[in-house]
């Protein structure tokens, strides 16, 4: 074998890497490595200009493999594989070394040590590149269909968009009726549209579209297969089972609503409602606006209930939508009865973007905003005869204590993850710290999950307003449609292979394979095992149990791993 020519490129990532790692030092040390013919530094490796430079380098120097030491491969592995391909290299001879998430960002306090670690990591990458071999991705046909799980606004809108592109859509809803959280709502912010009408008009279009099949009262029982070819078993109405084949899945199961604990800001007393309960009341009231038969004079809203907490109880995050929802509700209330006094006990008003106008409208219509600190949260007590009393320190009035007699306290609660444990189990969806589904990257890959072919949309991913939910739904549509409409998917060819010269034919591995991909094979030289690649998932269960080291996963060979270990440990 002729000596391989390897190019190594160290990324500054603006300063994300170079502020904490001496990239010039790394480059110098790597340049001295055997087989490294080119060692360069990029400001941003992912920029077009840097990519063009690297392509020119690969071509001019006839490189056989390249290493880019930059961010996590989760972000740019595909970017650089495509670049390698454009330069005429096999994409699997491109190796990405993570010196940002796993080096510069983790070791911001010791530049020398971080630099030494980065050198080791790049050496490991070079060792891997030296032993890398050209591989061909496994091409599979993709089913021209998508399953959308959850028929709330995001899911319905996504299903419709896909259906209109000619994709077969199975829209699966657990509830008896589609529409999710908005179906009974009379007036949604910011434009006061009717949730009921919105759902009805979408349903009408969904029914008229021949490509969409809607299942209600449906449950996901099982998922097998992988991107392009999922097989999903569902049960409708608790009895009829159906098996559906889809190329991709969009999960849009929405969120739940935080339920205050008993006694939290008076929760449990009559006339202490959550925002959703109050909106229900507002939606169902006609001309008169009565509470327990009495005219309402004052309403107090308490914001951030269960949100932005620092202790053990409640959630740490901000739910984004609740400030806007609450001020919108206050504006509606002002319109129903301008004589009602409305007092908002808030921590910070986050009516971001155009929703700021709602906040201004509420101010103009007479809502009064009082700012409380976490140290002195409002106290709600019951007063015999006259309803409720709320007492709080108003930071806007020199932290003076303000006491208000009120007929109604509205607890502005945020979103919490929906109850999805079964779905998480079946789909193996990654769940974030807060219990919502996790995307790969909030900016670079905002609707993709680590499970190829499974996308997330709407509030199941984290608190969102309706329009944000729809936007993420459409992003998931774009991603899933581009996958299923090409009709094929490429899978990494990381499947097992047998090193027949080492195989003793003991057959231990056959039972270790959960997918039945290994079988015995008679050869003139004796009995060995063989792999059925189409069944192999490449997890390597067989690799671990073979004492002869006669099995390996392509791209993760024994020699390669050992060489990487030596490079790192040396």
């Amino acid at each position, binding site marked *: 074998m002729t000596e391989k020519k390897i190019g190594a490129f160290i990324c500054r990532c603006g300063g994300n890497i170079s502020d904490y790692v001496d990239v010039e030092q790394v480059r110098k040390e790597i340049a001295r490595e055997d087989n490294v013919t080119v060692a360069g530094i990029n400001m941003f490796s992912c920029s077009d200009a840097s990519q063009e430079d690297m392509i020119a380098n690969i071509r001019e120097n006839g490189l056989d493999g390249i290493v880019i030491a930059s961010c996590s491969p989760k972000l740019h592995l595909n970017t650089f594989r495509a670049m390698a391909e454009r330069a005429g290299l096999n994409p699997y001879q491109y190796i990405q070394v993570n010196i940002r998430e796993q080096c510069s960002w983790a070791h911001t306090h010791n530049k020398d040590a971080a630099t030494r670690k980065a050198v080791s990591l790049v050496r490991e990458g070079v060792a891997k590149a030296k032993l890398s071999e050209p591989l061909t991705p496994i091409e599979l046909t993709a089913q021209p269909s998508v399953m959308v799980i959850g028929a709330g606004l995001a899911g319905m809108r996504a299903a419709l968009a896909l259906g209109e592109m000619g994709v077969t859509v199975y829209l699966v809803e657990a509830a008896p009726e589609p529409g999710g959280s908005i179906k009974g709502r009379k007036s949604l912010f910011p434009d006061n549209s009717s949730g009921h009408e919105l759902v009805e008009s979408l349903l009408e279009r969904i029914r008229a579209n021949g490509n969409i099949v809607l299942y209600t009262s449906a449950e996901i029982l099982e998922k097998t297969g992988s991107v392009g070819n999922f097989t999903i078993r569902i049960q409708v109405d608790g009895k009829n089972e159906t098996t559906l084949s889809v190329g991709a899945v969009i999960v849009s199961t929405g969120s739940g609503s935080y339920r205050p604990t008993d006694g939290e800001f008076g929760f449990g007393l009559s006339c202490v409602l959550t925002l959703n309960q109050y909106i229900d009341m507002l939606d169902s009231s006609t001309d008169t606006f009565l509470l327990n038969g009495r005219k309402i004079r004052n309403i107090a809203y308490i914001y951030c209930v269960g949100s932005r907490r620092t202790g053990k109880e409640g959630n740490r995050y901000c739910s984004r939508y609740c400030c806007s929802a609450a001020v919108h509700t206050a504006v509606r209330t002002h319109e129903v009865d301008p004589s009602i*006094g409305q007092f908002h006990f808030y921590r910070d008003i986050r009516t971001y973007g155009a929703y700021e106008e709602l906040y201004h409208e509420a*101010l*103009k219509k007479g809502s009064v905003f009082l700012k409380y600190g976490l140290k002195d949260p409002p106290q709600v007590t019951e007063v015999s005869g006259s309803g409720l009393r709320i007492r709080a320190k108003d930071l*806007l*009035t020199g932290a003076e204590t*303000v*006491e208000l007699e009120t007929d109604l306290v509205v607890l502005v609660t945020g979103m919490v993850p929906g109850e999805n444990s079964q779905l998480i189990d079946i789909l193996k969806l990654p769940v974030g710290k807060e219990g919502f589904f996790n995307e790969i990257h909030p900016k670079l890959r905002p609707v993709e999950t680590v499970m190829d072919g499974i996308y997330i949309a709407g509030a199941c991913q984290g608190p969102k307003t309706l329009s944000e939910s729809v936007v993420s739904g459409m992003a998931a549509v774009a991603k899933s449609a581009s996958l299923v409409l090409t009709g094929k998917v490429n899978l990494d060819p990381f499947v097992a292979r047998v090193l027949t010269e080492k195989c003793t034919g003991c057959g231990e591995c056959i039972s270790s394979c959960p997918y039945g991909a290994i079988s015995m094979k008679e050869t003139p030289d004796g009995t060995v095992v063989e792999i059925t690649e189409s069944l192999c998932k490449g997890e390597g269960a067989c690799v671990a149990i073979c004492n002869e080291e006669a099995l390996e996963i392509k791209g993760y060979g024994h020699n390669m791993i050992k060489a990487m270990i030596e490079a790192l440990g040396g």
Partner: protein
Amino acid sequence: MIRVNGEFRQRARLDKNFNAGQCFNCGTCTALCPVGMAILPRQLFRYVLLGAEEKIVEYSDSIYSCLLCRMCEENCPEGVLIAENIRALRRYLVEDVYHI
């Protein structure tokens, strides 16, 4: 402690010229006031919005020490008619407190 007085609030709110509800407490008015009012205009207005009638009486000196010069108003990002609101408070004192 301030006890919210609904009746007073209604009266203050029904004055068409009283628009301090739009104030979002930025403090620009305070920074620019040539008098350096003992109680900042925004805090005074909050008492009105909360219906703290006794505070309005308590701070009547401040209400009467305003120059009505509108320096604050010129720079108010929310377009609060500060001078006019102060005048509305004076009228309230004259009519409802001093009974002139």
